[in-house]
């Protein structure tokens, strides 16, 4: 939500594992099951849900802060021709998240929110959400 000014003029679709209530301000919204690398069955459900959403919405750009759901969205989006942005969560202070390390290899633009985690080959630092 704190990135919203960057999406001005774009058609926005939100996907989250959490109920957003009215917080999306009228933008289309899809809810997906939360999963992580230890919950294999939920990961499958999440994957199927994400395939369906991406086929319906056909995004031009996929932006994610993580983690497992975001990584899946990024890979699928990329496969369907979308350009992808990974913004590693500000919660990862000492090192990139595991999903972040994997996403660095596939995202068109990969950003960290901590200057000391930036690397010449990516992720880069451009600022943080705070």
């Amino acid at each position, binding site marked *: *939500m*704190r*990135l*919203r*000014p*960057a*999406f001005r003029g*774009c*058609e*926005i*679709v*939100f*996907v*989250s594992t*959490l*109920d*957003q*209530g*009215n*917080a999306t301000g009228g933008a289309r919204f899809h809810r997906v099951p*939360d999963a*992580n690398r*230890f919950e294999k069955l939920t990961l499958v459900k999440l994957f199927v849900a994400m395939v369906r959403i991406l*086929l319906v*919405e*056909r*995004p*031009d*750009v996929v*932006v*994610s*802060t*993580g983690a497992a*759901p*975001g990584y899946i*969205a990024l890979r699928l989006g*990329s*496969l*369907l*021709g*979308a*350009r992808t*942005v990974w913004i590693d*969560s*500000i*919660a*990862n*202070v*000492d090192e990139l*998240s595991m999903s972040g390390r994997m996403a660095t290899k596939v995202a*068109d*633009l990969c*950003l960290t*929110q*901590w200057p000391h985690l930036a690397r010449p080959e990516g992720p880069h630092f*451009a*600022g*943080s*959400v*705070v």
Partner: protein
Amino acid sequence: MIFVTVGVQLPFDRLIRAMDDWAGRHGRDDVVAQVGESAYVPHTIDVRPRLAADEFRAYVERAELVVAHAGMGSILTALELGKPIIVMPRRAALGEHRNDHQLATSRRMASHAAITVAQDGDDLVRMLDASDIPVVPQRIASHADDGLINELTSFIAQPPAQPRFVGRFLRRPRLGFSFGEQ
């Protein structure tokens, strides 16, 4: 009102129990907690398993103090609404999260005027007893750093990539697409 939140992904009963004991001892009937999938049944505090994002924000807005796990969603909401927040990091060794990133988050965020870090339940209770709660001067801006916004804006403005694979046959008009709670 004190609003307590441990997010909704994982339980954090060590924090909820400490708050419940404290509220019971002080006869506080104005403590509301979002507890996620917790098995702990509190005696005193009022619990909600999970709140929608806008309800969550409304509780933070009403609170005089936020007590939370060291999750960025909780911290950002408190800072945006100008509320003091005490955070207590989850520990992987106690099965409270997959790794210790909340310890790192609290170390980095501790320098912020509105944020106080409690290392454990006893520490938290000491702070509440001492009413050692900082006065928060003002709310932070409602959006991210300009640098980050500009980087994203210019990336989005670039011409679309050559559609790969399935995308070649299924193009549809421009769409922004976002994910996450931040």
